[in-house]
């Protein structure tokens, strides 16, 4: 029976994460953005919440709670509301963990999953995107070739979060059977991590170019072994998560602009008394809710094990567009003040632009 309200568990997740994001992320957001530094401390604190181990079955060292994309994206919205860069960094272990949970062989689960159940943050990540204008996740140019009992990877990846410290990087490549994913050690021969990349937003998040040159990987590092991965599903899980984060950013900007418009007086009354301002706020509120419902539906379908390609794609297009509009309104409502970095709206505006380009930078 159709319903759009959170259950008790989800309410708890939302509340806990909202409080956590307020306490831990918000106070770091400005300084981290200005100095392009990700506070290690924040990563450890997220890990201490048990969000990784709670999705991993007991037999692999976890706490055996039901894994749910919907619950994960409810969390992702709150963390991104706190700060997108820190949220993406803190959740980056999921980029390796989720594909293994989804498609890994028994041996791979036994070998890798216990790492995520430890007390400290297990630095790991994934490399999906490639540095070209017409990047398309369905047409990767990084290749995986089987040669002499090994997989040989070649290609260039970009926007790889925390690649400089990652123990392993999950590399997506086009192989004989389609899209494949390989667990590559961060210090593997043939894998080189380039200079830290510089972007308009996401400044606190260390993102890197990763070059694979005849990088040889043992075949048991291919996620899912012979069977491989369900690439579409992983992309869709990623899209659902990115959509939720777009909701988080948009909501942050909307809330801030709303409070500002009620306090800022012009011509003798709060600017929110004017329809030109009030209607921008009304539209933002409406779109934030619409975005969230689209994201939830994609995740809900994925949780049911159904194909959610259409839902995820539509949601992602919609969320990318609307986030740009809502965060733009945020800056616009603050006027000149919105353009000054003392207010966070310009940061949400810069971060908001990323969603149109991002693929696979977060996963549910």
């Amino acid at each position: 029976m159709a319903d759009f309200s959170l259950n008790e568990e989800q309410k708890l997740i939302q509340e806990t994460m909202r409080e956590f994001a307020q306490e831990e992320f918000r106070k770091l957001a400005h300084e981290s953005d200005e100095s392009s530094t990700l506070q290690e401390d924040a990563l450890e604190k997220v890990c201490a919440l048990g969000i990784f181990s709670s999705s991993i079955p007991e037999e692999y060292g976890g706490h055996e709670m039901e894994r749910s994309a919907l619950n994960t994206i409810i969390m992702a919205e709150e963390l991104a509301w706190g700060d997108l860069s820190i949220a993406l960094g803190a959740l980056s272990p999921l980029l390796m963990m989720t594909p293994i949970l989804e498609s890994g062989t028994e041996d791979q689960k036994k070998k890798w999953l216990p790492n995520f159940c430890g007390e400290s943050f297990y630095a790991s990540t994934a490399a999906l995107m490639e540095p070209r204008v017409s990047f398309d996740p369905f047409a990767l140019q990084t290749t995986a070739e089987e040669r002499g009992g090994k997989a040989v990877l070649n290609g260039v990846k970009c926007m790889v979060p925390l690649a400089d410290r990652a123990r392993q990087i999950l590399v997506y490549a086009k192989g004989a059977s389609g899209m494949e994913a390989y667990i590559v050690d961060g210090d593997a021969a043939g894998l080189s991590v380039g200079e830290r990349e510089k972007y308009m937003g996401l400044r606190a998040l260390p993102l890197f170019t990763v070059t694979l040159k005849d990088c040889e990987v043992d075949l048991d590092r291919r996620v899912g072994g012979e069977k491989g991965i369900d690439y579409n599903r992983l992309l869709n899980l990623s899209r659902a998560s990115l959509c939720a984060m777009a909701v988080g950013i948009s909501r942050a900007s909307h809330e801030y602009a709303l409070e500002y418009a009620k306090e800022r007086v012009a011509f003798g009354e709060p600017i929110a008394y004017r329809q030109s301002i009030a209607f921008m706020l009304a539209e933002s509120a409406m779109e934030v809710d619409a975005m969230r419902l689209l994201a939830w539906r994609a995740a809900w379908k994925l949780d049911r094990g159904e194909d959610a390609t259409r839902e995820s794609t539509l949601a992602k297009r919609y969320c990318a567009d609307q986030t740009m509009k809502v965060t733009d309104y945020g800056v616009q409502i603050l006027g000149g003040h919105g353009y000054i970095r003392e207010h966070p709206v310009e940061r949400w505006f810069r971060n908001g632009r990323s969603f149109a380009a991002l693929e696979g930078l977060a996963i549910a």
Partner: protein
Amino acid sequence: MIDFELSPEALKAQERVRTICENVFRKISRKYDENEHSEMPELHELAEELKGEGGLRGGMNRDFLTNVIVTEELSWGDLGLTLAWPEGGLGNAAINAVATPEQKARFGKATASMAITEPGCGSDTSNITTTAKLDPETNEWIINGEKIFITGGKTYDNVVVWATLDRSLGRAAIKSFVVEKGAPGRELVKLEHKLGIRSSDTVAMVFNDCRIPYENILGSPEIKTRGGFKGAMATFDATRPGVAAMGIGVARAALDFTKETLEKEGITIPYDKGMHDLSAVQKAVLDMEAELEAARLLTWRAATMLNKGVRNSLEASMGKAKAGRMATLVTQRCVEILGPCGYSRDWLVEKWMRDCKITDIFEGTGQIQMLIIARQILGYTRAELK
């Protein structure tokens, strides 16, 4: 619990309505668009046929989400015919929402339209000048005034009239009254000619010392200076998801048809292609699909809240604002994408573009919805945010 699954009842009703749309609505859609104000025997025959199934709308016990699903499906078939459906109109929704059990028994079976707008006031319903005065001698209300834009005023028997008990008391004194067919002093004075939804009549009525029984007032006759008007406005919280569903239904008709037509031309809509591999038309269709889904989910949310008895004014307005705007833009775009054929009256797309425009106007324009949303999220009164 978050769940996007429709109930078996809703799915069954949707499927049934779909066949009616294909077998009846679509076949007479153009005929009654071109022959405004003519009798539509096909609709009455269909209504008779469906009586055994409990009627198309299945009576007043059905849940709000199912009603929304059915309304979207009917409007996919034809919005004008949906609004002219012989089982009743908006007045019935108002009666169902606020009537006492005795009133439901008296008026539940009759069809009813709704009369709110006057020549001098539309969305600012607080300026209603139609008066209702109690005659203590006969215990009757005497209604005087003129109402316009009454959807189905000719087709339906009863009309729910909004009138003021005391103009000096403003919004709190506005109440709604059921004026039955044949009430003395009730007169239909004009049939409007419209841009779209031509198979549904829109009329003007004059009430000249029109006397109705005391028991025909909906809700309490007491004038509460605080919150009294909210009772009348609460009707909208219940009906707006339905109007939103109308816009969604027509937009989906246009989008479905556009996609089918493009497919015949060899153009399909992929969900798994990067943006550099999509044509402008493919992108436009994807964006329209996303907009439609967004409007639909907002509308469904508002309907599920009604089912739970949770206050939904904000959510109902969000659904209505989004759906009305989306439908307007989507149908315009579909006409554009189909070129000269889309503009031609040989196809129904141009009609859908004309039809759906009303969903961004009636039951509160899109702009009024934005005002409602803005006041709610800002916590402002009408005086603060005009």
